[in-house]
């Protein structure tokens, strides 16, 4: 029975608004739970994360290996020089990751090595056609070009 003095329209409007707020909360809460759980699951499997460089992210094996390689290479190269990432496939995203990890250098993609006057090649998996080998580790070589 409707309590005395109640406005049915107001009652309906109020309940609708309350319901809208609850729906929004459940909606966002479900999204948060979904994404949080998915990210946690992926993070636990990060060592086995395998993807093209377009999907690289921090903490995966590929970027960690690149970080280690470029860290060693930086000890051999004078700050500020131009460095080319040797890569016959001209992988754009690998180049961008290398540039991020070597901010003190002008990091260029292989095809721009000449134009940039690159003094060094850093190679992860291929031997460049020229250059003097300065350092080699599994999956990481540094060559002096000039």
């Amino acid at each position, binding site marked *: 029975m409707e309590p005395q003095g109640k406005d049915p329209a107001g009652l309906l409007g109020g309940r609708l608004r309350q319901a809208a707020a609850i729906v929004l909360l459940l909606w966002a809460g479900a999204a948060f739970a979904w994404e949080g759980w998915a990210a946690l699951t992926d993070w636990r499997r990060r060592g086995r994360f395998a993807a093209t460089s377009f999907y690289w992210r921090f*903490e995966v094996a590929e970027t960690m290996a690149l970080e280690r390689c470029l860290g060693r290479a930086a000890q051999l190269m004078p700050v500020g020089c131009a460095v080319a990432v040797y890569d016959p496939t001209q992988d754009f995203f690998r180049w961008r990751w290398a540039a991020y990890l070597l901010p003190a250098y002008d990091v260029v993609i292989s095809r721009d090595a000449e134009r940039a006057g690159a003094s060094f090649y850093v190679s992860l998996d291929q031997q460049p056609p020229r250059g003097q080998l300065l350092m080699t580790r599994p999956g990481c070589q540094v060559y002096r070009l000039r």
Partner: protein
Amino acid sequence: MSARTLAAPLLVAALLALAGGGLVRRQPVSLLQRAVLALLAGIVMLQVALGLGDALGLGWSAAFVAAVLAVGAVSPWLLPRSPAARTAPTVAGSTAAPPGWGDALALVAVAVFAAFAASRWVGNPDFVYHWGLKGHRFLLSHGVDFAYLAKPWNWVIHPDYPNLYPGLLAATAVVAGRWDDHGLLLWSPLLLLAITVSLRETLGAEAVPAFRRHAVVASTALGCAAFGIGHKMAGAADWLPCLALVVALPALVRPPDGAGDLRLGLCAALAAGAKIEGLPLAVSLVLVQLVRHARRRQRPGAGAIAALVLPLALVVGPWVWGVGRHGLFQPDNAGSASVRRLVAVVPAIAQAANTGTWHGLPYLLLLIPLLVATAPRLRAFATVALLQLAFYLWTYAASPLDDVGFLVLTSFPRLLLHLVPATIAAAAIAWLAGPEAESVGSGRGATRDGYEGGARTADLDHLADDGDGDLARRVAADRQPDGGA
């Protein structure tokens, strides 16, 4: 990763809020809202100071950054306070509201996002591709390195983009003592916290009843944190224009006045300094406010114009000057829109809005036209939001890139972040507040600046609320942390 580098963003944010506090101390808002506004003002002031340091050849050395932060933080306490500032009202509407379950859920959302950000697992690709790279490079070169930006192969790092965000990262790294992306990525959850706090205070001041306010605050934080985690948004610059629009909302809802002018001026400066897409947002904020002044037959004085435009000019001026002087403007930023492209863009936009990591929340933007039609107080906000959406549409339609669909899919989900939280807040003000809230600022019984009226209607809101309980019970419930009204 160390405690110092993880704490650095928090320390810098506190110093910036102290520095910006002097500028916004006359804003008639709650203490928490003022803290957010002070942080926003502090970020803008830092950018202006870094630009000045660059222009004067001072460089962003540790000493310079420390001096900027220290002088900024101390200056509000050294400057004499005017009697008006001493009596500046603090709005009671939201400060009186006790913390509740919505705040707790929001904090959980921010904390989880922060944990993922500090782990770097949700680091944004653009942080790697340009924002972080520029920040680190500028840190090493003690300023904006125009020679580096101008290298022919560096067109990929958007050399013509504004440098507020890289500057903020560099200043944080100076305080941290070194570049550590674990700590620097924490800026994103910190900004989400500021967004959530501002939104909470706005809803409180706008008489949204406690239960709904908690629900909306929690929903916004949870939804944005979900997107932040799922879409790898730690380190993205998009949190800054998002903050700008959320903080601007109260000024767009209330009748135009001096406090609103300054608030919008600062928000416009932050948006324009953060991203190139923030520039049209900044222009919209300023123009809409000027039109609102004109429609009320108020001729804004020189002070009002300066408050609206000066922060924007101080941020945009050095950026445009630097870009122009070094010839950094990229030709692919300009083009002419075509219908053929527009036809390709529209389905891509729908697909991007449906991005899994957003879980459909961008569909709430479809409420914006409804705001125009049914909520007169929200029309200024709706106009700004629609102009921004129109700008995105035009940008895509004018893009010289061949695969415009790919461009839309890789960028539009991020751009939606600029609008979604503020739109949720606007919709809550329009449709979840009690009917009395509609009279605030509408000219019917509103106070001069309309703001105190908002606080009062917060207390009166129960009178015409949902009607599902007796008045006394609902008034009592609204005083409880978990609401119930």
